[in-house]
């Protein structure tokens, strides 16, 4: 997604400007903390989806055939 690319660039841009002003160790701790948060969020999401996703996905995906409507 183009939108994503832009966001990534933006974030890395602001990180480098911070690095000019604060010690490197502090900046990398901050990056680590952010990465941990993202990972925890992703783990939580996977658990949430695992709980509700139908087990017979292949059967449903194959047999879900609709007549056109409207």
């Amino acid at each position: 997604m183009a939108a994503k690319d832009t966001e990534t660039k933006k974030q890395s841009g602001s990180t480098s400007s911070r690095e000019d002003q604060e010690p490197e160790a502090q900046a990398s701790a901050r990056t680590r903390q952010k990465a941990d948060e993202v990972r925890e969020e992703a783990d939580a999401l996977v658990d949430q989806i695992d709980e509700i996703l139908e087990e017979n996905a292949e059967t449903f995906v194959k047999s879900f055939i609709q007549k056109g409507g409207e």
Partner: protein
Amino acid sequence: MTQDPNDRIAGIVGTEVEYGLSWANRTPEDPERLSSELIGHVPEACHAPVLWDYENEDPRHDARGFLVEGERENPDDPDNRFLNKPLYNGGRLYVDGAHPEYSGPECASVRDVVRYEKAGDRMVAACQASFSGVRSGGPPLLVLKNNSDGKGNSWGYHENYLLPRSLPFDTLARKISSHLVTRVLFCGSGKLGSDMNPSDSGKYFLSQRAEFFEIPLGLSTMVHRSVVNTRDEPHSDRNLYRRFHVITGDSNLSEISTYLKVGTTSLVLRSLEAGALDPPVFADWVEAFRRVGSDMTLKTPLALENGKTMTALECQEVLVSQVRRFLEQEGMNAESADLLGRWERILEALRSGSPLVERSVDWAIKWSVLSRYREKKGWEMTDSRLKMLDFQYHDLRPERSVFQMLENTGQVDRLVDPMEVEEALGRPPSETRAYFRGEMLRRFLSRVHAVSWSSVVVDPGEGPLKRLALGDPWKGTQKRVGALMGKSGSVEELLKALNPLPAGE
């Protein structure tokens, strides 16, 4: 229209939602029957057991001025009851071909459109739960609020906008086309895999519907779908009004996407009606729609009639600036101002990649979930478990719906309070003729024989049934008839007082 332009946006709007349905382990053999059985479980608190009045229904008129061949529908009474569930909220739950369909009541605010559509989803979910309760032990029935099965079949989501007949149809078609093609950016509901091209089975699309469109203008909604639909069945006074029937939209789960889809279209139509819109027009509407619907980069240049090119986002930015200029001159009510602000913010968010998009636009919410889940699992994009996740985003079962899970855990933005939706299950909106229809059913049920969009057929006690015409969607509002209906102790008193129906505001 006789409305004060500062009073509310555009005219009257209503939406129609068709739902997909299937057993968890097999294709239904008789989906028409299954749809009827499903809607037979509509909660008593929602459904008024009267007939649907087919007298004024005729979908064969084309806005370009001709009548196509075909049969008018008019089922006998038992079939009528089997296929139709008129609703106390002024809407209609029914069977349309092989699908259950909910048509919300006519609304005069976009926020109402959102909450009545949401009420419809809740009603159909209640049908699903009750149906499954009766048939416990069998395979679960899945009811999905989506628009394609991944195998080349699509069913609809339609919007209806009341417009003055005086607006020439060819002007309307030409000037609205670019918005219908590019609004996908904030109201596509996304899908994994092409319906038409097996080699694109792992590709993600912004629009569920765009692939199915073949021609720029046309009457049919089931084959040779057109970007601008020409159905001319106003369900109101044909000399004054037009019901503009939009068939390009996806069904949305996100309240924000629904609000933007209907709200921006209303604002564009209002500007267009006033002659204040001069939009870019694409050289090939169908090609442009399909490209926008499959372009995750948001950067594809689209050919314009004038030989230049423009991206969908650039086109939207032109549209929103023209609408802003018009509204600033005309004045705007709180809802129009809110819509305009949200419209500008979502375009800015799409351009900059702001997280707002992944909290409010269906295709982006779903993509964010799908891509994060896939990354963790390490699966191929073509894995059927990911397509299942796509389908379950649209699942109406509260305990199995991915969207509902995201909503419950605060991962997506909402617009309306769940209590407002609850109220919309059993009461009509107050600012259109839906009020009169719904309140007649609520107050005088035993004397109402049938209803339709443009009529209420009552049993006057003596003599033949009496058809009250609701030819003006702005008449029959709470403001005009609420007190009268409250005072009338009987249908006879009401009929006497309502002769003729009081004029609209």
